[in-house]
């Protein structure tokens, strides 16, 4: 039995902001514990569908998608952690982490990809941002071309961000063919 890898000061990112904690990648899966106690995430390797790496400002981000559609992102890895962990995950969890790229061009046009609960906005095939459809309180079609999504306002959890997302809308021109005949659009 290998001990696994332990990382301090790994941020769990999500709605409401980020929280620092300790992440352990072990032979049985991945576990994260919030600094100072509180939230614990314990993922069994059998439940993991996909693992991704992404370069973010000043660090690397590990994305863990579960088979039930949940998605966790852990931020704060160094470059050398990436190769070490990639090997370890391949060997012990049996998945090869894929590399995802972050779009930093600042463009507001691209495409939408929906995978499980996550809606990703891609610019030039790179990820600009993602949101969880599980947090959407309501959606509305505005006119023929605009899709509006309102997010749950969550006052109960320890939201760490100063400015929090309330709603957003996408404009899908009639020339777009991605969503033709798709009743599952956001």
């Amino acid at each position: 039995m290998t001990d696994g890898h332990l990382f301090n000061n790994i941020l769990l990112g999500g709605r409401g902001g980020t929280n620092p904690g300790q992440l352990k990648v072990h032979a049985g899966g991945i576990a994260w514990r919030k600094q100072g106690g509180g939230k614990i995430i314990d993922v069994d390797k059998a439940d993991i569908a996909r693992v991704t790496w992404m370069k973010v400002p000043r660090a690397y981000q590990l994305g863990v998608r579960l088979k039930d559609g949940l998605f966790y992102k852990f931020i704060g890895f160094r470059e050398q952690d990436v190769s070490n962990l990639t090997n370890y995950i391949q060997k012990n969890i049996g998945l090869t982490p894929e590399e995802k790229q972050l779009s930093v061009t600042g463009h507001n046009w691209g495409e939408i990809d929906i995978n499980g609960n996550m809606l990703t906005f891609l610019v030039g095939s790179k990820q600009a941002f993602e949101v969880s459809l599980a947090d959407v309180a309501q959606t509305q079609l505005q006119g023929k071309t605009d899709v509006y999504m309102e997010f749950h306002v969550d006052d109960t959890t320890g939201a760490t961000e100063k400015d929090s997302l309330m709603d957003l809308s996408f404009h899908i021109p009639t020339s777009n063919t991605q969503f033709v005949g798709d009743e599952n659009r956001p």
Partner: protein
Amino acid sequence: GSAGAEGRGPARTSSELIAYKNANDMPFSKELAIQVDQKNEAILLPIYGSMVPFHVSTVKSVTSHQDNRTCTIRIIFNVPGTPFTPHDANSLKFPGATYLKEITFRSKDPRHSSEVVQLIKTLRRHVASRESERAERAT
């Protein structure tokens, strides 16, 4: 392909304006709050625990609203179909694209929210006038 949109060297037309070349160029911030990066003419928005950059030329308007204790910041982006937006060229270039049109944030800090709204407005005006001058000189 949209590979052409990520042109190298100085941007020539507004449709080619890019905020950053790679993730390391983005300013780092511990706080998840709307930021304005004057140097790179970008605004950074906190979405799901990450800072997401938008070049200020994509912004059509920004407003803030305050009532009692809540404070909201609303940003509307340029989308095709509105006349005289610098993005009309893009709707021809990327006919299949989906656009982020509008985004609203709730802010805990009214002073911060009126400050960023002012900064975005000023930066937007500055970039827009420079780009229209450049376009005039080019013709």
